[in-house]
């Protein structure tokens, strides 16, 4: 599927490569060429011969496509309940049609607006403070010379990813909670305890800290892979020309990672309204709904727990639409910076 649809823009793009690459000496070197090289002959063959050639590939994709259809595309139709007064014992067929009423109620509901604001606020924190951490970690790991230390560090950094949120929050509570290690120690020295876990104002810091602890090591792996793909001769040449450590970082490493960074950033922005679920539902009581209610917990409480399936679905749909818009916007921005983004720009 991908091959047939993407083949068309790939042709002229292939012709552009050399000139393009000359214009920007270091960044993205080799990448466009790599992507387009196998496509070039494809465009010259007919549909049938391509079908014959890619038969096995297409067959292998079938389970994936069926999975997507069954668990993603067909359930999308269920969103119709956002426009109904849906009752599970009546079913979609017999529930009352109410048009946009659920959305009107939703935007009149201060709790929803609060959840929306919390989500954006927490997402901004994550974007600014969480996104760069794996990159920095990857650079540190990459600069370690001893392979052994490197492996140990890498494992320690990414293992917490496999712990569940319940465990992570229990661990944080054991350390930082009101009766946790640090506060009990403070009391022993006659100092006042610090409400790390129960202060709604510092909640975003706590959330980001927990996420860094849990997931930064895992996210580092992609950057490490990208680092490995940078041509080592570039560093050698730069070093021979007298470029220092920081110059090499600035002029070789970061430009080499640029397309990966942009890709991850777009994916992250598209996903930005999904700030998390368990992490917030588990800490909602400690800091209150005012700080910890996000769109996903709001949807859960109104929809599943409160029986307002329709308003829950409406909230979910609103979130989906905003997310899609964000992805398009981020992709546009990526094109402006001269990157491919996630959908290739139409050329010519």
């Amino acid at each position: 599927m991908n091959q047939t649809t993407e083949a068309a823009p790939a042709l002229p793009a292939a012709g552009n490569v050399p000139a393009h690459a000359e214009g920007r000496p270091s960044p993205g070197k080799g990448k466009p060429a790599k992507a387009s090289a196998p496509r070039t002959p494809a465009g010259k063959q007919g549909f049938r011969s391509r079908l014959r050639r890619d038969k096995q590939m297409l067959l292998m994709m079938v389970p994936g496509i069926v999975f997507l259809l069954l668990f993603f595309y067909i359930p999308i139709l269920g969103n119709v309940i956002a426009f109904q007064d849906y009752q599970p014992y009546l079913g979609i067929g017999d529930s009352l049609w109410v048009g946009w009423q659920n959305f009107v109620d939703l935007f009149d509901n201060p709790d929803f607006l609060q959840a929306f604001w919390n989500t954006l606020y927490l997402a901004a924190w994550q974007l600014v403070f969480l996104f760069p951490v794996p990159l920095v970690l990857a650079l540190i790991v990459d600069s370690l010379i001893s392979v052994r230390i490197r492996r140990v560090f890498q494992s320690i950094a990414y293992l917490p990813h496999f712990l569940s949120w319940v465990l992570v929050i229990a661990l944080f509570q054991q350390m930082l909670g009101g009766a946790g290690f640090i506060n009990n120690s403070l009391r022993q020295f006659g100092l006042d305890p610090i409400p790390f876990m129960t202060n709604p104002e510092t909640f975003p810091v706590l959330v980001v800290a927990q996420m860094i602890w849990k997931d930064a090591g895992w996210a580092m792996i992609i950057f490490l892979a990208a680092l490995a793909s940078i041509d080592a001769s570039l560093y050698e040449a730069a070093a021979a020309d007298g470029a220092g450590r920081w110059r090499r970082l600035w002029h070789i490493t970061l430009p080499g990672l640029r397309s990966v960074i942009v890709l991850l950033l777009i994916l992250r922005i598209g996903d930005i309204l999904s700030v998390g679920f368990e992490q917030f539902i588990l800490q909602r009581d400690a800091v209150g709904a005012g700080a910890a209610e996000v769109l996903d917990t709001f949807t859960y409480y109104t929809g599943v727990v409160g029986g307002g399936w329709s308003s829950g679905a409406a909230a979910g749909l609103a979130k989906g639409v905003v997310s899609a818009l964000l992805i398009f916007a981020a992709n546009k921005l990526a094109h402006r910076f001269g990157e491919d983004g996630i959908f290739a720009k139409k050329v010519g």
Partner: protein
Amino acid sequence: MSAPTLNPGFSRRGFLGLAGLAVTTAGLAACGGGGTSGGSGGAAASAGVKLPTYKEFTGVTADLAGNSKGLQAAFFKLPEGVTSVKEAPLKGKVTGLTETFETMSPGMKDNPFWQRLNAKLGGELELQIAEDIGDGYPAKFATVLASDDLPDMMWVPPNQGIPNVGPMLEAKFQDLTKYLSGDAVLEYPNLAALKPDSWKTAVVNGKIWGAPIPSTPFGQIMSGRRDVWEKVGGLNASSADEFLDKAKELTRPAERKYALEPAYVNVLHMVTEWFGAPNSWAVNRDRTLTHLFETPEYAAGVEFTAKLFAAGVFYPDTNVPDIRNRVANGSVAGQVLVGPHDIKAYRAFNKDQAFDILVPFSADGKVKPTYDMGYGTVGFTPFKKADEGKIRELLALINYLSAPFGTVEYMQKNFGEAGKDYSLDAKGNPQLTESGSSNLPGLVSALNIMSSPENVVFNPGFDDDTRYVNEQQKKLLELAWRNPTNGSYSDTNSKVGAKITKQLRDKVVDIITGRAKVSELDAAVKRWKSGGGDKIRDEYQAALPSDVPVFRA
């Protein structure tokens, strides 16, 4: 439940930690499945429904007799088992949805206790058991309902905020009126032994939907370890401020000791009783209703609970997984429990200490305190629509599972088989064997939340506890009020009650923990009223039975 020691039925952590929060703020306003005993709307039809004939179980005699005001019968010793069911109830396989408040038992395949119970039932009782985690049951219930692949029986809890109970029952479940109303119930003697007050909670829209599941008629109480409280003069006080002083004295963070469990809404419920607040609704002289939230007593209670929080007497983290153990070992002094009988659960952790029950006292020495009785049941278990043969099979099954204390069937359901699942100690009291301890608790809890006889107080080996609970129950009954809307049905409540109560509760917890100001309560109550509270009042007011007493006439 007040049944056997080793089977606390549903624990406080379970039923109160989550569901009970709804009970405390909203009282049973959050109850969707309440029955109806006369009035308007869906209730109009129910004026005519004839409750099942009551025929007391006389097979055994209690050591301390109960009474009709609510005092529970109590037993010191296990009576000699009497048979109450003549033939095995099942012919084939039946399925059910229920919840457990204990650690999940092994599945049927690996659970000899379950297999032995099936053999006695004469078929296969297959249960989907939701665990009491997070929003456990209501979420599970909602998804099963939405899937449209219903099991034969589904437990409907009255106060976990299951929405739209009336229309849901009509659409999916069997009307059991003709099988149970009046003398028809006598065919199922164990169901006939359930009291009329219990049956009222199984009537919706003038129809009987299942056998009620009696629990204690008492409501929440505060309890704590006797020797811990004796250091500060005992678990009692002559004013709210004295209680605060005692709590402060018991809080010693340097020694990791705290006065109260961080279940703020439960503690608030206790505090409002000291201020003399009504049980969910107050009936005024002109027979209008005023909700608890609208009363100055409630506001005073919120303010005082915020004071408790500010004084640092609550355990400092919101998640405390092993709270019972902490109370039993004395590191947390006080906890709110589902009812007086529930103090026996501490004995599993600490056999050497006695535990006290706080009788509500006057907050300022002038106002008369109140004590809120509970709903009396944990709802009912309706059956999926089916033919008469299947329905009769299910009724026979519930009849078996509702066998009263002192019967052979009760022992089979709660303790299993002698010698295999349990053995009798020197005093003749049942003790679970090793295999019993791993196979029983989770499943027994799940069975008891969907079917139960009238409860009794029974703490084998702890006769003093049994006597003490009986004494305290008598004192509590002197202050007792019942929710005047029990047994009435409000459409609006079942539709939005859970939602607006949650909104208010979130705000109240914000106020107690200092995240919001006390003055914000007014706006929250206004929002509750306009969001449906006023409509709920009108519906309950129209349905109010004439025999419900005026609150403080």
